[in-house]
């Protein structure tokens, strides 16, 4: 048994906070607004969509601290142990002058009603620190998780382009004080298990993955909280009790990505943002998909492991991972098993996860150079929307142009992420021609019976699912003119 402590510790702006009394479902936003009366951070939706509650959370990564924008509304207080929380109140200089981000927004008329503005400031602050001279694409990506209803974003874009003319990140207090902050965070993160509360309100922060395994084995009913981009909503929207809960976001061992023998292993705690950094060069289509999952705040919090473990039929990462032939490692105590990812999804709301078991890693084979791998997400709004239909394709042709293998998986078409086995069969061994494609289309009716809901009708889902196969063909065979819409010029 490891040593335990009964408090969480983190930095909030310039203060060190020690909390002994907190509930697992207590959100950072409520803590800021109600307990600390830091009311610059706003609640707009309480579901991680509007970004009015954006704050920065600095976390240790090796010897560095990484500041990322997160949605305080769905970020649990308990997940902040060993972190540095920076809110809008920390930006103004002691002499009352404005921060470069704030100056730029003021000068470019970037606020109207002002309610979204603190969140926009924080998102642009995070962007400017990592990329002081962003392209419009970079800015738009940084703002995918921030809704503004007044300005139409144009003046915010003008401001964002100009921030560095008001100051450089090197002279920002968070840069100047970096060493001291790192030292303090290292002192806080002492490698002990944290246990707080008794009975109904219990929570734990494991010291290590082994410790997590122990906790879950001892109490299989424990709610596992990683990025809380889903569990957060259980609390804010449905007022569900999540105790006892274990918070695994701080486990560095789960945040590793590695590659061996053409297989990338992604730890269950790797955030979308970190996965993007690793994957965007190696599997570009997957990188492009990740850029359209949530906003930056959600990508900084949410994990691929969580996206798999929660078993949603409209999770964005399972279909492409299934198409790539990914496998999943589940762990219980000291025993592990590895299964094909598609076998994990049994039925709606049911996954192949035993009590006390947890998702440890997903293993993704790199597509072979000759394999055409594509993934396309269809949603009402291009960015930060939940999928209506998502199709993923890994198709390899023989030298003679016949289909040697085809793995095709969809989201939004069934009660789970699901392979299009009949379609695959209809393609296999046939020449890669438009005739083969057209002949394969009826097989979709065997594979899928989609539903109608507020995102799309069954008819539209079926039509676009089929058309994505047509798109794949057109992309590989050459059509007249572009086959997809491009918002940004391709970067050479």
């Amino acid at each position: 048994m490891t040593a335990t402590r009964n408090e969480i510790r983190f930095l909030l702006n310039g203060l060190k906070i020690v909390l002994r009394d907190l509930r697992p479902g207590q959100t950072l936003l409520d803590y800021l607004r109600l307990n600390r009366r830091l009311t610059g951070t706003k609640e707009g939706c309480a579901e991680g969509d509007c970004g009015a509650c954006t704050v920065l959370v600095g976390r240790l990564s090796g010897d560095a601290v990484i500041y990322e924008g997160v949605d305080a509304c769905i970020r649990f207080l308990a997940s902040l142990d060993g972190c540095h929380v920076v809110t809008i109140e920390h930006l103004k200089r002691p002499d009352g002058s404005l921060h470069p981000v704030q100056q730029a927004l003021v000068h470019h008329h970037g606020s109207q009603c002002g309610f979204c503005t603190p969140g926009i400031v924080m998102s642009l602050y995070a962007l400017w620190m990592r990329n002081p001279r962003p392209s419009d694409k970079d800015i738009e990506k940084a703002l995918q998780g921030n809704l503004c209803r007044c300005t139409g974003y144009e003046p915010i874009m003008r401001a964002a382009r100009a921030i560095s003319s008001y100051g450089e990140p090197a002279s920002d207090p968070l840069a100047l004080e970096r060493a001291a902050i790192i030292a303090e965070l290292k002192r806080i993160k002492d490698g002990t298990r944290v246990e707080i509360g008794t009975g109904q309100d219990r929570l734990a922060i494991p010291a290590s993955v082994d410790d997590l395994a122990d906790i879950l084995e001892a109490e299989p009913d424990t709610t596992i909280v990683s990025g809380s981009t889903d569990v957060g909503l259980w609390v804010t929207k449905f007022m569900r009790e999540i105790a006892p809960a274990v918070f695994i976001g701080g486990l560095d061992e789960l945040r590793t990505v590695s590659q061996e023998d053409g297989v990338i292993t992604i730890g269950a705690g790797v955030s979308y943002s970190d996965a993007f950094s690793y994957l965007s060069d190696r599997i570009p289509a997957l990188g492009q998909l990740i850029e359209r999952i949530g906003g930056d705040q959600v990508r900084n919090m949410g994990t691929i492991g969580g996206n798999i473990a929660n078993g949603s039929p409209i999770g964005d990462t399972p279909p492409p991972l299934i198409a790539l032939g990914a496998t999943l490692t589940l762990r219980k105590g000291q025993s592990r098993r590895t299964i094909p990812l598609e076998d994990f999804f049994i039925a709606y709301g049911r996954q192949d996860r035993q009590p006390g078991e947890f998702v440890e890693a997903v293993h993704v084979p790199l597509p072979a150079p000759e394999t055409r791998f594509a993934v396309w997400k269809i949603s009402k709004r291009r960015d930060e929307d939940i999928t209506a239909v998502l199709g993923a394709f890994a198709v390899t042709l023989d030298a003679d142009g016949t289909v040697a293998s085809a793995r095709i998986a969809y989201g939004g078409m069934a009660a789970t992420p699901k392979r299009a086995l009949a379609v695959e069969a209809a393609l296999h061994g046939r020449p890669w021609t438009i005739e083969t494609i057209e002949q394969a289309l009826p097989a979709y009716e065997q594979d899928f019976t989609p539903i109608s809901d507020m995102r799309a009708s069954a008819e539209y889902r079926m039509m676009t699912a089929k058309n994505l196969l047509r798109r794949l063909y057109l992309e590989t065979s050459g059509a007249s003119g572009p086959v997809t819409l491009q918002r940004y010029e391709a970067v050479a």
Partner: protein
Amino acid sequence: MNKPAASDFSSTKITGGVATDLRHDSAHKHVTGEAVYIDDMPEPAGTLHAYLGLSAIAHGTIRAIDLSQVEAAPGVVAVLAARDIPGENDISSTGHHDEPIFAETEVQFFGQPIFAVVAETREAARRACRLAKIEYEERPAIIDIAGADPQNPRLVTKPLKLERGDVEKALGAAPRRINGQMRVGGQDHFYLEGQIALAVPGEDLDVTVHSSTQHPSEVQHMVAHALGVPSHAVTVEVRRMGGGFGGKETQANLFAAVAAVAAKRTGRPVKLRPDRDDDMIATGKRHDFLIDYDVGFDDQGNILAVDLRYAARCGFSADLSGPVTDRALFHCDNAYFYPAVRALSAPLYTNTVSNTAFRGFGGPQGMVGAERVIEEIAFAVRKDPLEIRKKNFYGETERNVTPYHQTVEDNIIHRLVSGLEESADYAARRGAIAEFNAGSAIVKRGIALTPVKFGISFTATHFNQAGALVHVYTDGSVHLNHGGTEMGQGLYVKVAQVVAEEFQIDIDRVKITATTTGKVPNTSATAASSGSDLNGMAAQNAARQIKDRLIDFAIGRYDVPREQVVFLPNRVRVGNQEIPFPDLIRQAYEARIQLSAAGFYKTPKIHWDREKGRGHPFYYFAYGAACTEVSVDTLTGEYMVERVDILHETGRSLNPAIDLGQIEGGFIQGVGWLTTEELVWDEKGMLRTHAPSTYKIPLASDRPKIFNVKLADWAENAEPTIHRSKAVGEPPFMLAISALHALSDAVASVADHRICPRLDAPATPERVLMAVERLKAEAGR
């Protein structure tokens, strides 16, 4: 906040007068998070929190209601239902008495408030709400417009008919005739700050309510009615809203009334803030419409007669549906002259939340119908829709009478549209697009240029009045108050600019203060784009009264003729000497001159006879035009806005930077309405799109790739409005209709522009794809 700089008594120009690009007065506070919204105010000691219990059926009777578990829940202090309203259980804003605060026996929409819990914390109140046991007897519900009885539909308010000329005859005689139907969706306001009220009980009957409202006077009246007290007992205050867009014109009443009743009942301050889902479920939205059109025209595309019916989903009560559907008819012409016209409204009762004001107030839906008619004609005569538009524009001296018999006297649409056509390079781009489409099998481009003519004034004539209160303190600093509310649109700074200009003092000598019913009474809603027109004039009037007294004083004190008293920047020239403004004020004070004034304004010229459908409801019109180019993926219906060019006029702008923000923001909000913002109710009448995860307003990455916005700098208001400026809040919203028509144009290309796509709104990727498929199928036949 930074300390204001000392006044410069020798400058040639004040800082922040009219026609300057002053930033929003709260910009510093917005970016630092120091701007205080109601939920940010320090709560008075003992503040309780209320939460609403909502119905779970769309229509039926409450058979039994058991709130005992709610009452027994931890932290609960009180539970309120209809029987606990001491005054009238009604918040109908238009006197229809059809909108209870809490449902009594009949439930009329899914999400209707039935009770409220008051508890020590918001979480306790919210949790307790879930413990209510309500038994309903469900009855059939009309959820959609299509569900209304086609012969004898139930209406929430009296319909309107506009008629000019003999439509039957003109339609019958027209060489060509088309009829059709169009569906246009509603829209949630999605103000970032949700509804909220904080009520603080006072002595006697008094209560002060901090309400996020565009209409403090109405909140005052509703709270007074609910409490059964005179209006003088109720003070309503609002410094700023985190967005309104019409969604806080009447919809704040419910929250204020419940908070006030709970505060008086418990004797403690009570705050009521619903979460986003409840806010979206329980408050009204933009009306969706079903528009039937029948148009007669000639082979050249000249409109000869139009017969229109606008049916709107109003929800379970009238709210503002009467004036909204009226305004739809007032804009059924957009910028076009109809030689013969008949337009009817049908404000339909449905078992859905009561729809309400939203930027444009029915005008956008009216115009969307007009533009569909134009499009139909263009396809029928195989001409560019822009050509048909221009052919049918109102004339400047003839062909200039509207369907409501008002003559259009200030028409500048010809100049605006030809200016935009040139600056947007419309003709060349149309050619380039045709070429692109010919060589592109999947991605298709489309372009459209559409005009906007929008009538300015409340159509209820008596709302066109405003008051202001101006104090000059003995140090020469000025306190400004007026009846308008600040929701982000920059009204406060514009009115302050007017006052600074009037006194010729720097803007930071003018203190902007929160709107409160205690300072300026009987105000109208800050709505109908009228904020600066009305309140700017009222504030100018107040300032002028004080100025006149100062002039009279100076004439007497210094024995100079009137024309020798001149207000220069931060000083007054009296005869040969220049006296710093504060010094003159001090002298005036010592001479016992009144340095405070209540200003007033009422819009001239307007009148309206609704029974006859005739009058002059609008003081003037605001004009604009937009050209939008899109690209569409015909495999999925996905699209992208490639380029937008806008030429809009705001008369002689009070603040071009603020106006530009209104144009850009209004346009994007309009694009959201017509593209990705889709309200979906299920068959049970439950709104399924009640949060940003399911209801998709535009993001930064939905902006046009190229966005050129210009103010028509040559424009000025023909009427003597405040410094000859024009209203800007609503008109730019309708520029977005160009985006719908650009999508339609791209869709039409799959059938060689031979078939009108009849693309309904919102044109989600799904609707676009379905239109593509239909056109392909029809073209292939």
